[in-house]
């Protein structure tokens, strides 16, 4: 365990030094602040539900941005260190490969948590400063947004490691990471929508749709944030879906967690088998 923490510490230190943390925090904060100011427009100056609108728009933003940032940090983690030659020395030390991977994961996850917490936290502080009144339920939804965004980041860090452990060189890793992002964030939903339109509800029932949604971590995240809280789902236009869906928030969280653990375990297995 100590080796894991030492590796995580190095990763965080390097992240702070590389301005990774700073850049991601600023990016997320800037977008979150923009959305929270723009987001108050549809509800007018009364401001009731302003926070809920922000949760809806922020979660849509997160689906695009957080996976991209996570893949950017993680796709290079193994293959990059191998190409630079630093992995050779590190693995001659009394440290297991899974410890290296887990340490890196904790470090990268911490970097992403700091960025999400500070970036989205800035939006919350700004809303409070503008005198926004929000119910406890809205705050709970906002808290869940930050937590699940970090978890979505963890999913894509783990997927990035899997790519990094499998490919031969950094260029391939970068290409595969972008492909993965396009597939899960953009193409999957479009393809699913097309499929539903074509099918006209003939063979794909509610449970089949649920299963298809669970196969994409980005959709799991979307469902969790847009249907998990009644006050939010009203604004997201998914109130109907949430009422009919059999997917409860705890189940969705469990699926997201599985989306972290399975790729991470697969990455560790691939990395352990790999010869330097």
């Amino acid at each position, binding site marked *: 365990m*100590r*080796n894991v923490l*030492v590796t995580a*510490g*190095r990763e965080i*230190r*390097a992240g702070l*030094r*590389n301005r990774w943390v700073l850049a991601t925090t600023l990016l997320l904060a800037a977008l979150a602040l923009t959305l929270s100011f723009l987001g108050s427009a549809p509800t007018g100056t009364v401001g009731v539900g302003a926070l809920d609108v922000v949760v809806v728009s922020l979660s849509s933003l997160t689906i695009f941005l957080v996976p991209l940032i996570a893949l950017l940090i993680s796709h290079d983690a193994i293959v990059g260190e191998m190409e*630079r*030659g*630093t992995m*050779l*020395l590190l*693995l*001659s*030390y*009394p*440290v*297991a490969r899974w410890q290296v991977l887990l340490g890196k994961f904790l470090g990268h996850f911490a970097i992403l948590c700091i960025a999400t917490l500070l970036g989205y936290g800035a939006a919350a502080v700004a809303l409070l400063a503008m005198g926004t009144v929000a119910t406890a339920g809205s705050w709970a939804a906002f808290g869940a947004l930050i937590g699940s965004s970090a978890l979505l980041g963890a999913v894509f860090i783990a997927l990035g490691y899997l790519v990094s452990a499998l490919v031969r060189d950094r260029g391939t890793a970068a290409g595969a990471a972008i492909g993965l992002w396009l597939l899960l964030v953009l193409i999957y939903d479009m393809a699913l929508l097309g499929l539903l339109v074509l099918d006209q509800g003939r063979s794909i029932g509610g449970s089949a749709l649920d299963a298809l949604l669970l196969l994409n971590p980005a959709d799991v995240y979307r469902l969790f944030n847009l249907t998990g809280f009644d006050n939010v789902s009203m604004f997201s236009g998914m109130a109907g879906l949430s009422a009919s869906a059999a997917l409860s928030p705890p189940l969705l969280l469990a699926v997201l967690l599985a989306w972290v653990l399975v790729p991470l375990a697969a990455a560790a297995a691939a990395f352990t088998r790999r*010869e*330097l």
Partner: protein
Amino acid sequence: MTATIHLSGVGKRYGAVEAVRDVSFTLPAGQSIALVGHNGAGKTTLIKLMLGLIRPSSGSIRVLGEDPSAGAFAARRRLSYLPENVSFDAALTGRETLVFYARLKREPPTRAVALLDRVGLGAAASRRVGTYSKGMRQRLGLAQALLGEPQVLLLDEPTTGLDPQLRQDFYDIVGELRDRGATVLLSSHALTELEGRAERVLIMDRGSLVADGSIEELRRLARLPVRLRITSGNGAFPDQPPNWLGPGEEWRRLDSGRIAEIACAGEAKMDLLRRITESGGSIADLDIIPPTLDELYAHFLRSQEKPA
């Protein structure tokens, strides 16, 4: 003397390429060994096998009593490695880097800082490794290899990029560790540099071990001629081959004939000197130049190329 590294019948193939074939040797504690060979002769592969970074296709390896690829930590804590072209995370400072490696070896961070001073990086300790020159990175690599009283040091081309002063310091440090009972394996192709510093030489050629022994043993085996430089005591040597020259012995005149250089078999040199004095020659000075490591190395590689 106890053995720290033992290889028997080790082979490693990558697809169709046999990087290492049927290599066996035992390295004892308290010895420094030179591993020499061309680029691509299998030196680095052999070191990676000993580190457990790759698994042998055949044969078995024991390092400090353990199979290195089994992933146990006890042996690795007492083993250190300096890769060829060592590199570090450019974002961290020299001190942060070394403290990180010290923590992985369960060494107190203060030891790491002391080592930085020892390799002459004390002043640059808080600069980022990205700003280091090649020589400074090599020193940092050396510092990490010295962490934690290693009992086995595997050093791959350790002195590339070091200036002569630091090179000397490096061999002093390595000698010290060896005297305290460490096995030091130096891979190199700068052979002249290893002369007098390695008690034993392993020569690799295209994946096979072609020679193994002390430099003296290899010299005897190779039967390479020694060169005698004789300064005449009574005028220049004549132009034509002198009558005391034995069969198969070559000679040439240096310094406008004042010096004769004769290449003769090692065991024939006393006979040669006797013949010179008996024929009335006078010897003012005498230098004996034994075959260098470079010549030995070239000899063993040549003997490989000839079909047996």
